[in-house]
């Protein structure tokens, strides 16, 4: 299991990458404040498990699972060094693979069905492996999410759904848009075990998702974790944020997930305050340099691919028939 110190380091690195992107990329979607959800939910998974993070946090999950920040940054800028060689958006689909799901358009909700299908594949081929899939409070209202949850419950699939509720779908508050008392009640109505947790407490997220993962590994089917957090930045860079007050944002700054864990670790004597500040500053400086350097690579030539068929992209995939 990931140590508490490693969770803190992962959150610091996630924020450092995120904040460097805020400085260098006008198209970035800031994830500050939500780190506890995506770091905690994906911390203890193995290489055979499938991850399908929400777009806000997906680069952090890739970092956590070993992708280099250089590759991730190239993906966000769409340059040659990216995982897709500049063929697709690395901010929402950084490291697609058989065990890693990203977004393949700007449409929200479909990746929840992909993760559910991956769980079906795991159930058929790799007993004990699980899929973890997160999505925002906005995506929770998408029809395909309801269809997918029903299928997962019906087929008792090994998947953990994490609603990363940052309280805003762009501008629409989840308090308005999520009808009913709790979004988790939608899962309960399907017979899916559901919990509601403090999404700014990384230890609570890890504990809740960990229990759900253990249930799925044991063959007990899907679970649902509703993690309440807060989007500290706008939906996008230069979001005028006319839909909320500075006081509301300031109140949530008090509950910053990184500061909270840092305080706890300092209290337990695991972390020295000065060392913590030094590590944090060094991490931010390191990622600032990587992102700034990646931004300068946009003049490298990329060979275009002129067919969308798999066998044209990779000739060895030509059908054996």
């Amino acid at each position, binding site marked *: 299991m990931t140590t508490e110190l490693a969770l803190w380091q992962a959150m610091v690195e996630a924020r450092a990458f995120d904040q460097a992107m805020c400085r260098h990329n006008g198209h970035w979607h800031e994830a500050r404040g939500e780190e506890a959800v995506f770091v905690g939910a994906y911390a203890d998974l193995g290489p055979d498990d499938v991850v399908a993070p929400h777009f806000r946090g997906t680069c952090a999950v890739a970092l956590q699972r070993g992708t280099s920040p250089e590759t991730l940054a190239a993906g966000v800028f769409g340059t040659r060094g990216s995982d*897709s060689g500049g063929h697709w958006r690395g901010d929402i*689909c950084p490291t697609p693979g058989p065990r890693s799901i990203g977004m393949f*358009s700007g449409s929200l909700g479909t990746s929840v069905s*992909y993760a559910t299908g991956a*769980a079906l*594949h795991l159930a058929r081929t790799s007993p004990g492996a699980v899929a973890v899939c997160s999505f925002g409070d906005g995506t929770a209202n998408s029809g395909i999410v309801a269809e*997918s949850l029903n299928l997962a419950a019906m087929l008792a699939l090994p998947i953990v759904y994490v609603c990363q509720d940052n309280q805003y779908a762009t501008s629409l508050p989840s308090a308005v848009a999520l009808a009913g008392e709790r979004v988790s009640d939608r899962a309960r109505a399907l017979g899916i075990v559901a919990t509601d947790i403090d999404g700014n407490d990384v230890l609570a997220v890890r504990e809740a998702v960990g229990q759900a993962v253990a249930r799925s590994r044991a063959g007990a089917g899907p679970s649902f974790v509703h993690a309440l957090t807060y989007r500290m930045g706008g939906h996008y860079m230069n979001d005028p944020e006319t839909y909320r007050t500075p006081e509301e944002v300031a109140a949530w700054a008090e509950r910053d997930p990184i500061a909270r864990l840092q305080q706890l670790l300092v209290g337990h004597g695991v972390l020295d305050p000065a060392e913590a500040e030094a590590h944090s500053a060094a991490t931010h400086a390191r990622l600032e340099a990587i992102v700034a350097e990646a931004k300068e690579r946009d003049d490298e030539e990329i060979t275009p691919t002129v067919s969308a068929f798999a066998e044209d992209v990779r000739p060895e995939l*030509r059908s054996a*028939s």
Partner: protein
Amino acid sequence: MTRMTMSEAIVAAVADEMAADPSVYLIGQDIGVFGGPMQSAKGLWEAFGAQGRVIDAPISEAAMVGTAVGAAMAGSRPIVDLMFAEFLALTMTPLALEGASVAFRTRGQVTVPLVVRAKCGVGPHRGHAESCVGMLMSFPGLKVAMPTTPQDAYSLMRSAIRDANPVVVLEHMSLLHGARAEVDPELVIPLGAAAVRRDGTDLTVVASGLMVQRALRAAAELAKEGVEAEVVDLRSVAPLDVGLARASAERTGALIVVEESWPGSGPAAALCAGLLDTPLGRTGFPVRLLQPPATPVPFAASLETAFVPSVADIAHAARTLRSTMRGTVTA
């Protein structure tokens, strides 16, 4: 060699692939003990249901296809029995906009080997006739097959299941339970290859689905008048075999494209665009299109009959084109 209907041939192809490859599974509505709509999965539940490889699904078309895309990316080879082609519209984001883009977007690191089966066209049902063919053809990376014979149905279904791309197999409801014919399970037919169904010298008729059968009947009528029409069955509409259609029309000197699909976008429009893709931007032979009007498929039996090109319509179009050409020559 066994004699089969198209429907039986498709089920046999699915069964043979499921027996050969454990990564293949089938999901769809009413494909359990019910045996599939119009017997589309007859016997598969009995053969593979206990292995969890025949999944009787709720009415969740988007999630059926979405989960199949996800399972395919993870390593399975899913087949979705979507019942009717009109339901395809409910699935386009996971199937076409996204699923068909994955190989390109990942440079082949991830692929979506997925088959979607859908019954299409006018047929014994009152309703469900919308085939949405043009919609499917609008997305790069998606293949679309449309068999018209038991042999093609068997071989194209096997090719579709083995393909690395998402493939939609459109099963025409007026052909599915037609005459039985010999099926050779060893015969391989690649996706994207058209076939000449009838040799002719005087003009070429290119068609797909039910229109192939009607074109052949029209050709028989025309033969009585001394006009020999060559009939080309597209078999796949994506990729489209423009080369074979062009070669035939260049040989006969005239082309009629007959479609049951809507005008605007679809096989006829795509074929014309392909034919015009020459150094001088012209074909060298006249081209006529015979298609339904740009309206939804009407309900009244008489209106539905009038909506789809008939044998008489095709024969008439051939005569008109021939007389126009003679007029042009003498003018």
